[in-house]
């Protein structure tokens, strides 16, 4: 197991370095002047020159890359061209909030999706299975922003049940939790798509498990149906869900652009989007690096979770 983990970590580091190099090259191949993108049309040539000099953009690309790597090795992700703040500060401000928002929505999706999937499996090919599956697919196929706007129109504008947006000025996770009512709609909207996929994965695996020999044996031995489901079927049905969960970690880092835009939630998604529009390379590089790390970490965690849930998997062998 240890050797396996070391090997996987080594692979992860190689992947992250590859992503970093590729991103750096691709970003700097983008046409146009960064200084003009940031400083705008009224930037004088003198200001453009100062900008390029300040951020080393007048140096050859390989030198810029060496400087960037040196900064990274010192834990410095650089300074945002646009926001003029350290990238690490910008990410550190937003990441915990996104983690909370997407963590809660994922948890809600799991709580609803997995039991629903197993329920569908138990009743598969019955009317209730079709109704539930149809509901999930309908919600899944509807765009996030449309669901968000519909909920706002109904629950905020029409009936004033919830507030439509996150109050400005909240920067900490504690502040977000204090205003928990503002979290309800974004969490619900973000969980809708995940519920559909979790439930369908859980359903199809559970159908296979319910037909497996060990389930039949358990039933033949007189194990109560509820116990068969909770002790045997549920555990094995979680394996594909674990894979999805592992892969969803980068989306937590990448943020939820739509939800952030509609619900006034200043997170990583908005930061990434605005930076992409304004050629803010340090932020893009920093965010891509963090997403790369999150991706390989997520996959690694999923692999480890397999071993915990399924003893047949022997990582070390």
């Amino acid at each position, binding site marked *: 197991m240890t050797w396996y983990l070391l090997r996987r970590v080594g692979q992860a580091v190689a992947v992250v370095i590859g992503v970093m190099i590729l991103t750096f090259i691709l970003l700097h191949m983008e*046409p*146009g*002047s*960064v200084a*003009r*993108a*940031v*400083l*705008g*049309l*009224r*930037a*004088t*040539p*003198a*200001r453009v020159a*100062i*900008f390029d000099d*300040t*951020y080393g953009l007048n140096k050859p690309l390989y030198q810029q890359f060496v400087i960037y790597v040196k900064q990274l090795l010192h834990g410095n992700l650089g300074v945002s*061209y*646009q*926001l*003029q*703040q350290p990238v690490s*500060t910008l990410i550190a*401000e937003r990441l915990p909030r996104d983690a909370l928002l997407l963590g809660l929505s994922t948890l809600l999706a799991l709580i609803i999706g997995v039991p629903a999937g197993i329920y569908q499996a138990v009743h598969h090919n019955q009317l209730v299975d079709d109704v539930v599956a149809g509901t999930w697919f309908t919600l899944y196929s509807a765009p996030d922003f449309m669901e968000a*706007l519909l909920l*706002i129109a109904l629950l*905020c*504008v029409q009936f*004033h049940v919830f*507030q*439509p*947006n996150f*109050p*400005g*000025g*909240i*920067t900490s996770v504690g502040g977000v939790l204090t205003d928990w009512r503002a979290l309800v709609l974004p969490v619900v909207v973000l969980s809708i798509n995940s519920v559909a996929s979790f439930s369908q994965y859980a359903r199809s695996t559970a159908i296979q498990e319910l037909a497996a020999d060990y389930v039949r044996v358990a039933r033949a031995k007189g194990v109560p149906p509820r116990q068969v489901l909770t002790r045997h079927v549920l555990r094995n049905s979680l394996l594909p869900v674990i894979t999805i969960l592992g892969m969803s970690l980068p989306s937590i880092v990448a943020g939820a652009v739509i939800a*952030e*835009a*509609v*619900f*006034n*939630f*200043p997170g990583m998604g*908005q930061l990434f989007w*605005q930076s992409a*529009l*304004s*050629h803010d390379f340090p932020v893009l590089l920093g965010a891509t690096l963090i997403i790369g790390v999150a991706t390989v970490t997520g996959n690694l965690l999923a692999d480890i979770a397999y071993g915990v849930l399924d003893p047949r998997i022997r990582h070390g062998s």
Partner: protein
Amino acid sequence: MRTPRRLAALAATLALATLVAACGGSSVKVGSGTTVKGQKVNGGTVTIAEVGASPNFIFPYPPATNENGYNVNLTMGLWPSLVYVGDGGKSAVNPQASLYSSLKYSDNDTVVTIVLKPWKWSDGVPITSRDFTFTYNLLKANYANWIDYTQGLFPTDVKNVSTPNAHTVVLDLTRSYNPSFYTDDVLAEIPLMPQHAWDKTSATGKVGNYDQTTAGAKAVYAFLQKQGGDMATFDTNPLWKVVDGPWKLGTFNSSGYYSWVPNKNYSGPDKPILDKVVWTPFTTDTAEMDTLRSGTTLDLAGLPSNDVRQISALEAEGYSVAVEPTPGVAEIVPNLYNSAVGPLLQQLYVRQALEYLINRPQIVSKVYAGYADPGNGPVPVLASGSYVSPLEKAGGPYPYSPSKAISLLKAHGWKVAPNGVSTCERAGTGPSDCGAGIKANEPLQLTLLFTSGMASFDQQEAAIQSTEAAAGIKIVLKSEPFNTLISTAGVCSKQSHPASTCGWQLLDYGYEPYSLDPSGASMFNTGGYNNQGGYSSTEENNLINQTEYGPSSSAFYTYEDYTAKQLPWLWLPQPSNLFVYKKNLAGVTPLNPFSGTLNPEVWYYTKPSS
């Protein structure tokens, strides 16, 4: 049919507001001439929405690398400029709110004598000429790293600064300046800095006279700029507690949320009535609009031009609408040195035909629901007050006229094919030929590159494409995100027009903002850094110089009319800024087009008169 109804609804609302103001309760005069009815309530908090706003610099002289327009919103109420621009809704200098009591030009307009009012900083220390010299010394040593420095202007245009007494400053300039230009565009960019509090090189160091040497001035400026970018300490740093504007910073956090509280020692005419003004950031227009529609926490918010149709719904939620003309010029820039269509666009008659075919009144009414400047020339009719020439007021030299456009093209050898593509029939350089560089059978087809992401922009460009077709001018539309567009479309000229950055033909990226004096320098003069299309004319250069350096106050109209006719750019309507505000909030209108932050010092809540 919908637009007129909306306009009627707005007009009815404004009329009703006027009627109510005329009939009820006691009246109160606020700001510069606005009279509002209802019982005045002292105190209260106003919450203002700002979309995409995240100020990141508080020192009022940001570095050259910083381009965050919201910083002005943060600092303008704390450290207003020496010359305060915008007098209520008028596009004029506001002498009452300005720091000077007199401003005189002498010696052939090479000497400016400024007498400061006996006002005080928020800590009770008088504002003196020493504060001016401190400001000047810092800028003189650091002008290259000041965002607003323009080559040849303040502080490098000053030979000497003398201070005969504590309240008088004499600027000895390197050349004559047009007094209007120098007052409205140069001195209006200069807030004073408190020497007694800021002349230091470290947080723990003592205040001295460091600014009096170049090295010292550099050290002080570097210290202040470093402190000015430390967002975590904006609301706690003692430096920023010393202000001379009506407001002080209350709270600030890095998300862009901040508040102003009254400066109790403000010496100016309009002392704040409210207890607090809060700026709250929004990620997008959509988020802001949802909050407005839910009728919750916002007292004032900008209304994006895409959401003009929401006005009646917002009025039902208890909001009024305020219109602020935008001081700027909206345009399509023709690339006169594009390798494919440069020869076409160099022909004045082609540019005239293009302009005649832009149905600007229709764009104003249909795309912007009436909330836009007509775009009759280089100076905005609604926002530039006395700078607007009679020609522009009368509709400009090229009102919409497809027949004139067609006549022009035919007179210059074109076979006009309405709704098709016109072609050059008579190639050549004679007066009735197509013109130099234009080949026989060359089609009159141009690509218009514009900013994507705004429905109103899409509609405007589609309208232009449609009306240009009436004379067989085929416009191909291509859109790109704003930042991509401005980073890839370079400044092109006769001398330099590389294919990599000068491949664009017609360019519409939005508008160019103006100071109070809507100078054409940098945009229309030969080699101007913002003269993207490469327009060059000796006459134009001379006229621009007259507006900046000549003594005549009529020089501006001459420049303006010449530019309007020559069409270095094609003129377009410029949408106004729209705001909605709670109906019980008084003093919001008329909006000052130049204040940037609005003027909450004259706002107050009202309650119905008993």
